[in-house]
């Protein structure tokens, strides 16, 4: 009696199992790969499904994946240099995400003697998918290797992506890097070795491994190498979830800046802010809220020594036009103490340029 009863669940299981075998699976049945699936393909059909999804998004995102060629000015650490990296266009008006170290020369061996502002690339060219070069200007960077730039040129006449004739750029959407799960399949595009003739951004497929909190970096096994910096990591929906940053010794050590960081700091990066500086500089003036006019001058502070006065209207800061007082806050970042900054002001109808030597902001107890 007992034996018979205990057999029933086994029989039931066996029958269900058999039913699974008996159900006909058509040889040409297409598997659609779910973009958030974290397991490996188990059959050839699943492998093909994953392949189709990869190919679909590569087609979608290739136009927005770009190469970058940057020229760095000569500075205290050495002569002028050039470098190459990658990026991804994320807005129709030409905002491009990249790695900070692509557009800002990293100092050899640690601390910079020069500020970001003096280490930023003088000339940035964006290499489009058809090989055309267009000019771009560096915007903000942060300390976790995120960077942003804006294309200043226009789409070439031969451009065929939607909106090209109206001056719009092909865009990749930004995805949710926080929701990535271990094992989830991802695709990396970039220009390893720098942009190369006859080679569109090289495609690699891999999987999300983990988020390294101490590095603020996503780790995947999509292999990366010099030239890939700043290039996009996509999920299988074709959304940018990371920006390539650095590698470790093993092939499975590939680190990307999480897309979430860019989303959090978007406005600040667009305004050109250098985010996360350790040393704050003292200008010795405060600004009014409604206009870029000086509200007060600290006695014997840097602004006072430069000859600035209350009421002066700042026209240009460090050679850059000041359009709104809100932008000025971002433009003040990225400097080091003792740097001399030219400030063009208007006072009583007269325009003049004064030289401001920045000081280190005293730490408050």
């Amino acid at each position: 009696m007992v034996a018979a009863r205990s057999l029933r669940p086994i029989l039931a299981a066996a029958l269900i199992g058999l039913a699974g075998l008996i159900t006909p699976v058509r040889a040409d049945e297409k598997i659609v790969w779910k973009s958030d699936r974290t397991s490996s393909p188990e059959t050839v059909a699943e492998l093909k499904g994953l392949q189709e999804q990869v190919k679909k998004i590569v087609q979608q995102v290739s136009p927005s994946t770009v190469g970058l060629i940057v020229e760095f000015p000569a500075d205290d650490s050495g002569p002028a240099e050039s470098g190459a990296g990658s990026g991804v266009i994320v807005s129709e008006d030409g905002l491009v995400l990249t790695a900070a170290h692509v557009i800002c020369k990293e100092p050899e061996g640690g601390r910079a003697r020069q500020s970001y502002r003096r280490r930023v690339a003088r000339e940035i060219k964006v290499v489009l998918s058809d090989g055309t070069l267009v000019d771009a200007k560096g915007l903000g960077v942060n300390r976790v290797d995120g960077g942003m730039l804006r294309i200043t040129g226009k789409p070439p006449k031969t451009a065929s992506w939607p909106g090209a004739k109206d001056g719009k750029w092909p865009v990749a959407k930004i995805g949710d890097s926080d929701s990535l799960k271990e094992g989830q399949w991802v695709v990396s595009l970039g220009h390893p070795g720098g942009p190369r003739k006859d080679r569109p951004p090289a495609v690699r497929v891999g999987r999300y491994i983990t988020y390294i909190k101490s590095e603020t970096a996503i780790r995947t096994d999509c292999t990366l190498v010099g030239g890939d910096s700043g290039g996009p990591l996509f999920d299988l929906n074709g959304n940018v979830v990371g920006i390539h940053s650095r590698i470790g010794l093993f092939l499975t050590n590939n680190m990307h800046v999480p897309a979430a960081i860019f989303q959090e700091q978007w406005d600040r990066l667009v305004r050109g802010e250098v985010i996360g500086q350790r040393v704050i500089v003292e200008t010795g003036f405060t600004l009014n809220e409604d206009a870029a006019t000086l509200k007060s001058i600290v006695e014997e502070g840097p602004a006072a020594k430069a000859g600035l006065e209350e009421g002066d209207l700042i026209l240009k800061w460090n050679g850059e036009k000041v359009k709104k007082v809100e932008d000025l806050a971002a433009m003040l970042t990225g400097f080091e103490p003792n740097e001399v900054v030219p400030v063009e002001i208007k006072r009583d109808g007269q325009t003049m340029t004064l030289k401001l030597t920045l000081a280190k902001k005293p730490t408050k107890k």
Partner: protein
Amino acid sequence: MKRLPAQFLAAALGVFLAAGASSAQTSTDNGKRRLPKLFAEAVASATESTVRVQVANKDVALGTVVSPDGYILTKGSELRGDISCVFRDGSAYDARYLGYHRPSDLALLKVDAEALKPVTFAEPKAGIIGNWVAATGITSEPVAVGVISAAARKLYGEQSFIDNTNKGYLGIILGDIADGDGVLVREVSKDAPASKANMKAKDVILELAGKAVKGRDNMIELMENYRPGDTITVKIRRGDEELELKIKLGSKADLNKDPKNIDRSEIQNAMGGALSGRRTGFPMVIQHDTVLKPTDCGGPLVDLDGKVLGINIARAGRVESWTIPGDVVLPILKDLKAGKYPLGKKD
């Protein structure tokens, strides 16, 4: 655990970061390792046309059977000595080395066998980027799998120069001679193999191991025949004199002690595994992200439908392995069989 420095990835800019990421293995690695099993059906046919190429019973490459009567193509740059080929069923044959096409690095071997199964190269087609591919070996599973990163392309610039980093090095910088044959020694690196033999800047190299040196490219080509540790006789002209120097060649690693020689992209490309010595200068390549060992080059590359795309020719970098497309292989094979590239001939 010792922290490894991480490398930033702008080309021509590489910076050591004072902190590194953990190298702990995770369960995702097991997942990727299971993939080759799924390719068993796709590779079955091409595996029968794949051989293991050995020199002195040591694996040096894989090979691709291209005729039923025993013609085999393989990667030629590391073949030296007695060559043998081992098939899937374990049978081994001595191989004759018939010809070498230097630009493609394809070598033609012949074994005395019959009724072998040759590969059939598929017609090239568009839209292959993102396709799964597998490099076949002589077991039921492929030696490496990955995806196509870039379709067949011509190489330009530095990648188009033929060079072999496994060769023996003198440790000198070459220059051109304005008039006449030979090659100028512009500089002899400190502690270089050449300096130990008293070679000096402004010497003109006339002969290498008895062969006349016509110019810089010719010198590089001749040097590819030698390996670190080989001793060669170099005939030079210094002023009015002609001298013979015996030089024991060093390796590329020896050279890197000179900071002038360190190339950041080389360092990064070497992170994660060995690269092929000859990894540039091919006529056309298909690029994929398989992790191919240098000694597993020379066999076929297939897609999920079992179509043979070409012959794997190099582990070219950290992110790439390269394959010569089938339609590029075929005319080279024809010329090799016709005796157009016998060994010892300069092209």
